[in-house]
């Protein structure tokens, strides 16, 4: 039976949409960028190499928790030994990437991005979606999206670790403090963008003050809420720039691991 815009009683119009603008460009770009990122990240995680070039560690591999990690890269030690899957050693990237991935999968911004572009639900406003049924986030697995805040909290731990990585990048390859290189800048920016992404998160906005009923009784939290609210308007920008920069940071570390001279030291 016809549903949606073709339902009984609605204006009989045969087109799925009458939009004349290029509404499909936006979802197309989203698919292209996200897909490229996934391909690149999967390849890099499988590669299980070239993620550490002292003192730089790729954000895809930090913290490196496996006993297979290259020496010096395990900031938090190797509590799990190593994990074997189908007779192969699991890349340490997979152990941790699940968390940032979860943070982004449940993110209120990325939900818009992937529901529109990958799931086409809907592909664009006032463009009929191809699905016959829709239950949204009322059932498993999408109901998990309601747990975004937990991924947000875990994300804070990762932000802290990646900030430490950026601080460690003030060392030279010999382990002496007080130096700074291109890699330092790359990792500092990486940490900054990730903090920006977390701080502008809707769950953060809620936790910091959004859940309050009377702002006037909590002046400091109100102030913090207004700051987070301003950042929140840029959440989409933080989401993209932090995603792309994480990949770039990894790429940079990989290149330095192959060509140590690429990491120009300023001092």
């Amino acid at each position, binding site marked *: 039976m016809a549903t949606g815009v073709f339902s009984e009683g609605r204006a009989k119009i045969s087109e799925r949409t*009458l939009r004349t603008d290029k509404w499909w460009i936006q979802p197309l770009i989203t698919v292209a960028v996200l897909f490229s990122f996934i391909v690149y990240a999967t390849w890099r995680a499988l590669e299980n190499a070239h993620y550490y070039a002292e003192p730089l560690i790729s954000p895809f591999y930090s913290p490196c928790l496996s006993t297979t990690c290259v020496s010096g890269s395990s900031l938090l030690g190797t509590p799990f030994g190593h994990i074997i899957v189908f007779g192969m050693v699991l890349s340490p990237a997979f152990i941790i990437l699940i968390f940032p991935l979860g943070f982004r999968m449940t993110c209120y911004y990325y939900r818009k991005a992937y529901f529109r572009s990958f799931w086409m639900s809907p592909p664009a406003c006032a463009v009929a979606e191809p699905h016959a049924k829709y239950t949204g986030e009322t059932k498993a697995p999408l109901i998990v999206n309601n747990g975004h805040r937990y991924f947000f909290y875990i994300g804070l731990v990762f932000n802290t670790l990646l900030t430490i990585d950026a601080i460690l990048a003030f060392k030279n390859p010999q382990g002496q403090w007080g130096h700074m290189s291109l890699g330092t800048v790359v990792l500092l920016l990486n940490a900054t963008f990730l903090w920006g992404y977390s701080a502008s998160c809707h769950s953060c906005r809620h936790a910091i003050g959004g859940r309050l009923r009377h702002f006037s009784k909590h002046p400091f939290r109100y102030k913090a809420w207004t700051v987070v609210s301003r950042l929140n308007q840029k959440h989409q920008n933080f989401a993209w720039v932090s995603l792309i920069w994480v990949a770039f940071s990894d790429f940079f570390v990989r290149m330095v691991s192959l060509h140590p001279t690429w990491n120009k030291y300023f001092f």
Partner: protein
Amino acid sequence: MARTLKLRIWRGDDKTGALQDVTVEANHGEVVLDIIHRVQATQMGDLAVRWNCKAGKCGSCSMEINGKPRLACMTQISAYGEEETITITPLRAFPVIKDLVTDVSYNYKKAMEIPAMEMPAGMKPGEPRMQQVDVERSQEFRKCIECFLCQNTCHVIRDHEENKKSFAGPRFFIRIAELDMHPLDILRNRKKTAQEEHGLGFCNITKCCTEVCPEHIKITDNAIIPMKERVADEKYDPVRWLGSKIRRREEVL
């Protein structure tokens, strides 16, 4: 008369209908509603269209112009190219009555399902004291002019007629948020009912409601997502749930 405009206007009723081509004169600075009125006065005396204030304040002249849900009184014809044909149809999420007029009674039914504001018992007129910062969030939602463009564009019901019975739609999520954030409203089960009765969980944050809102209310960021977070506090966050059992804090908040 500054230019000649080509239009395609949908005419028909709940049984049949089609886009009809019309050519009409247009003046500089006119909006689509002016053009429709000219068509009415000169060519189609019985062309049905709803409108009231013609100033973007009453939300009556909602329709779809080149496929986009818009207020006809706030859509300048100068936004369209000289050669462009402007296609005008009724809202496509609601049953059509005639031409550009749809049956929006769904929205009034949903309005009836949201429990009204409840003041604390014993509070007398003139007694309420509320700080500006405490009312501002709700005030944003009260800017709503009930044009129902958000309801019309929301794919949950636009594309799935069957969801209408269990989904209140963005307009009423901002109403629930308004009341849940109201400094004095005492009804405390709004979060729970938002999820369980009004279908908040259907929303997948694709933000079309915000995109079409002529009042620029940040429906998704300021109402739906905060409500989803508030629902999570009560239903999906075991730590907070435990916390709320140990000490009752909401009164303080």
